[in-house]
């Protein structure tokens, strides 16, 4: 559904009415006039579903199950951020055992989501296929391997969470039932296989051709003193931001643009910023395991990495991290007792923020004395990256205007897919059009 019109070589319209291989409905429109980019709109036309409105009046306990339905690809992110926000409001600190189990199920989501994006959504761009299914005709073994890796991510979520899409075992305060040691041990052999497969993946994708394209980004990610942050931490950036997650709204703002059902986020006074694998990798590289660090050096992909197309290498390295971390967590696992902390509702307000596969997912809730939600605010990763995606497209089309129109359109789509945008999340939200005219 792509259409690029050319009046003459200096003017063009790039238009992709329905962006493929992203989660949700979006489109892209770029207008070029007299050899200059005049307008870029990354549109999200996913219909609004009003989660923040209908959460009002619901019990605090229901937030993880309800907010999971914002996104079928990263439900754990929503379950974890909402649980953490409620625990923050109600003054509950979960035990180390519960914390570890949360990290494990989150690793499952990272593996499933990253492998889905690396092989099924992004690699076909680099290898010149319409989809992974088309790719499978020439690279059958590769796609089989990808599916097996993805399946393992899903299995971790199934064992710990009950099922892969919208897990049922995650609640405010912990888990309804802690899995047994034996249930988790059953994952170990496949994780060991997946460790090798993840290393092969890093070496494979590092060999792809990347367009020359370096940007000057402000990266924002969680940071934790003792681990590569996933489930908790302070919000930091490469330009001096260092805040508690409860201070988010003092430093960030959202605006509502006419062309998008997703709100655009910006850092107050500075503008666009970048969340997701590239941000985490550049900010927290030292906290990866030695194995990922060595491999990053081997494929000469160490910080700073400022080419968003190389996000595919970082996702592969993070997949390896999540596999190694899962092995470590299972090795030392003892079922937490109790599996869920006791909670007493009270009038309160709390914030939570965790690292979804595609970047930070921030929640805030206000509760009354019975624990009924009075107010909810949810900022998903894609709405935070939306402004930066438009800036990338602006810079990319300016730099590569000479390319043939079909190639430029495809690469613009690819530039959007660099962010693994989840539009269902952001609408809470995408469409591509490149317009060259006199």
């Amino acid at each position, binding site marked *: 559904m792509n259409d690029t019109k050319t009046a003459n070589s200096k003017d063009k319209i790039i238009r992709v009415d329905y962006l*493929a291989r992203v989660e949700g409905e979006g489109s892209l429109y770029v207008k070029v006039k007299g050899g200059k980019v005049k307008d870029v709109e990354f549109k999200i036309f996913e219909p*609004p579903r009003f989660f923040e409105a209908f959460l009002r009046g619901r019990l605090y306990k229901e937030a993880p*199950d309800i907010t999971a*339905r914002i996104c*079928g*690809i990263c439900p754990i992110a929503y379950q974890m951020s909402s649980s953490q926000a409620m625990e923050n409001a109600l003054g509950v600190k979960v035990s180390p055992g519960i914390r570890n189990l949360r990290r494990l199920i989150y690793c499952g989501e990272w593996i499933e989501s990253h492998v889905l994006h690396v092989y099924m959504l992004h690699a076909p761009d680099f290898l010149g296929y319409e989809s992974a299914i088309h790719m499978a005709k020439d690279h059958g073994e590769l796609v089989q391997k990808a599916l097996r890796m993805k399946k393992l991510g899903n299995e971790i979520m199934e064992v710990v969470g009950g099922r892969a899409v*919208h897990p049922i075992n995650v609640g405010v305060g912990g888990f309804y039932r802690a899995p047994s040691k034996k249930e988790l041990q059953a994952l170990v052999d496949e994780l060991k296989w997946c460790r090798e497969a993840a290393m092969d993946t890093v070496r494979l994708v590092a060999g792809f051709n990347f367009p020359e394209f370096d940007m000057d980004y402000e990266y924002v990610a969680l940071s934790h003193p003792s681990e590569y942050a996933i489930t908790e931490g302070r919000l930091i950036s490469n330009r001096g931001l260092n805040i508690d997650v409860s201070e988010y709204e003092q430093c960030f703002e959202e605006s509502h643009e006419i062309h998008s059902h997703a709100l655009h986020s910006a850092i107050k006074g500075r503008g666009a910023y970048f969340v997701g694998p590239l941000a985490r990798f550049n900010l927290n590289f030292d906290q990866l395991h030695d194995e990922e660090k060595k491999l990053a050096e081997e494929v000469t992909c160490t910080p700073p990495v400022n080419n968003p197309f190389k996000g595919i290498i970082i996702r592969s390295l993070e997949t390896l991290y999540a596999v190694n971390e899962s092995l470590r967590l299972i090795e030392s696992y003892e079922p937490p007792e109790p599996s869920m902390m006791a909670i007493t509702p009270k009038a309160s307000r709390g914030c939570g923020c965790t690292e979804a596969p595609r970047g930070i997912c921030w929640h805030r809730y206000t509760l009354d004395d019975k624990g009924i939600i009075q107010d909810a605010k949810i900022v998903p990763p894609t709405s935070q990256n939306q402004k930066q995606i438009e800036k990338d497209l602006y810079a990319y089309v300016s730099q590569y205007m000479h390319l043939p129109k079909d190639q430029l359109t495809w690469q613009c789509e690819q530039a959007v897919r660099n962010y693994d945008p989840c539009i*269902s999340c952001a609408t809470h939200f995408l469409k591509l059009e490149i317009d060259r005219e006199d």
Partner: protein
Amino acid sequence: MATHRKPKLAVWKFASCDGCQLTLLDCEDELLAVAGAIDIANFPEASRAVVKGPYDVSLVEGSITTAHDAERIHQIRRDSKILVTIGACATAGGIQALRNFTDVKSYIPVVYAKPDYIETLNKSTPIADHVAVDFELRGCPISKKQLIEAIIALLAGRKPRLPNYSVCMECKRRDTTCLAVAEGLPCMGPVTQAGCGAICPSYHRGCFGCFGPKESSNAESLSHWWKSHGMESREIVRWFRSFNAYADAFRKESEAHE
């Protein structure tokens, strides 16, 4: 031997979370076999290639919430021999149908600074309210097993074999102790259609109704039981008002306790 044209499958999305169509990509062991047996003609989440209709089978995810989508579904119906709705959004309106119990205009300013930019309908409605549906797969999300069974059956020209009994049956089969009887926990198993495999009770949690009301479910009796065990009316309303809130049996029961 004559070569047969591969049947064409299309996947369509309306207001939803993408989780049900992701379930197709989650069929890791079967995906390449399915892709070999059929022509995946339209599946934008997975592919930029688009093959024009008509389609032999269309899988439709999501509910109707905009005037544009209310039009779009009619074209999809015209282009599809068999139309299957997948998931609670498509079969019952989804969690976003909570708006149906209030005025959606009150929702818009809660989320959006400029309400004028937002186009939305007052109600989130299932696909069957707009066009004829040949078959539905319940669940929030749908079950992988049921999806594969439906695709195989429809391509073979038979009716998919899916249960219409309650979650309780699945619980008994997997030998899970009844949480409602043994521990007095609220559980929607008796009124909810089977299909998930009774996951929640096996994790020591009452069923919360992802698959929607089973045929001729007695929701009133369940509320009565809950009430006799001290549950307040507004809590009963919340239990029936989640992902299948606008499915008839659950909607009527929640309205009875408002």
